[in-house]
């Protein structure tokens, strides 16, 4: 698994990127993903909590990020490219292992953000820094 953090200018841009990963339609007419990545929509994340008065009415609005945020746990197999095939001998033993690369899907790299912490969201029990794409 590889984890990526992304920010897009708005929700519709993020949704378009998600849809481009692959969707189909089920028998009830609902769209469902055909990929096996795990996507979490964080939206315009809270940068500062709001202040409420005694009735619970907001007297100072929360400060939200201007961008729309996603965290993605990528299925490594689906974002791995074999750059060079392995070279085998006559017995099938590996002489030179295959060369692979793992990268963001097309169109995602420019939206990726690189954090030095887990940020505002993480996958339960999985360290982002250890699995950063």
């Amino acid at each position, binding site marked *: 698994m590889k984890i990526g953090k992304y920010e897009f200018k708005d929700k519709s841009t993020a949704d378009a990127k998600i849809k481009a990963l692959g969707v189909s339609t*089920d028998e009830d007419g*609902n769209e469902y993903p055909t990929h096996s990545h795990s996507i979490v929509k*964080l939206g315009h994340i809270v940068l500062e909590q*709001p202040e409420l008065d005694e*009735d619970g009415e907001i007297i100072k609005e929360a400060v939200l990020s201007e961008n729309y945020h996603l965290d993605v746990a990528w299925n490594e197999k689906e974002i791995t490219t074999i750059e060079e095939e392995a070279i085998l001998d006559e017995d099938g033993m590996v002489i030179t292992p295959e060369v692979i690369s793992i990268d963001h899907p097309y169109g995602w790299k420019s939206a990726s953000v690189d954090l030095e912490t887990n940020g505002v*969201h993480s996958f*339960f*029990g999985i360290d982002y820094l250890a699995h950063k794409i």
Partner: protein
Amino acid sequence: MANPTLAMIPSGYKAGKVYSVLPANGDGDFTTFTRASFATRLNNAGFIETVDANIPRLDYTSGSCPVLLLEEQKINNLTDSENFNNWTKLNITAATNTTMSPSGDASADTITRNSTAASYVNKTFTKEEEDSLIMTLSVFVKKNVGDFFAIRAQGTYPNRVDSLFEFSTETFTSLESGNNFSFIGASFKKYANDWYRLDVSFETDEAATLTTLFSPRSLTGQVDSTDSASDSSVFIWGAQCENDNLTSYIKTTTSAQTRLKDVCKDGGNSVLFNGNYQSDLLNPLRLRSTYFENLQGTTDILNSFLCDGVLSYGSTMFVDLQKSFKDRTLGRISISDSSTSNAVVISKKTNNSQFYLFIARANGNIVAEITTDVDYDVRNKIAISWEVDSFKFYVNGFLVHTVTSGETPIDLNAFAFNENNQNSWNFFGEINQVHYYNSSLQNLEIEKLTSYSSFEKMAESQLCNVE
């Protein structure tokens, strides 16, 4: 009553695998279990414990018999779910780690309010979209000073839902305020040591954020009502706010956390599902539908053997579901050839109130099918039996559909809690047991299998009280 060829009754597991009770040689085990993240379960000691990635969860929430817990991906949007001193506080104090929590360690906090009108802890988070969403807010509480606990979920003020739980009567009182913010339901579950998990479901307004507020009380009222006592308090732990329905607890600290989905598949193998678990040569289904189909007279000879009990044929699939979770996608339980060509399928519909049961053969052609109404919140027992020219569907003790012509699916090789042993349409729910029989059981046998041993047990399973 015939013994099942495969029986998975949740009992044994290890990382990446769920063991079946039958057959004893391991051929019926579900050899693929994945969940890329940690998750929690209620263990047999009655405590909530965190389990590592890829560890199947046998959960004891429903009683002394565990269920296999299969859940979808969920995020707990509330950070510091166990540390209320890090929440925003108004006229309230939070003392950390004061008492034993439902996880069995001293991680529960005490929050103590005064008599001022507005006394609460609160936390705001961003919803995944500025739209009306169905969400569930939950928290573990234990009574201390005062008999009430007030909960509020709020969008753009005054749009909100308030719920008040009374410990002594174990009842909720809920009300909506403002516009476009509606109450759906409130319930509780009791845990060891007098802990309650309270949950309130609602449909939000279209605000970008949601604010959650909690307050202990000695009087009835809301989080912002004056209180008679100046020291009302409650023990509190494990707050969670998630989309859709309530699921198992997800611990958070400084960041929101996502539990990833459970996937369970690769149960059994091609030998087990195709014939008498002996050899392909003795598989009557294959003999009849593949080799002798077009030879006049041969079918009669084979039938005579079948009638004499020399051979038996047909198959039965049985599932016993403690609960079927309501989610946004289809969810299937299947025995298939690991493709969409041949399969016997129990499918949850996205309307969350029906099951679509069907049998497909040869390129996915539907041989028999029925859509039946079910209550996802209660226990459901479903069986499908199939043999050439005889397909039967049973739900909770009743034969709901019969088809009397058609060939059977072939080359079945896997029992899976998804569409066809691949990766789509995973089933999410609580599994009591699943069986496969290499014979089509008699009507009385299946009625007994899918029914209950007494009227009381049936009533209990449907969450009814018998007086």
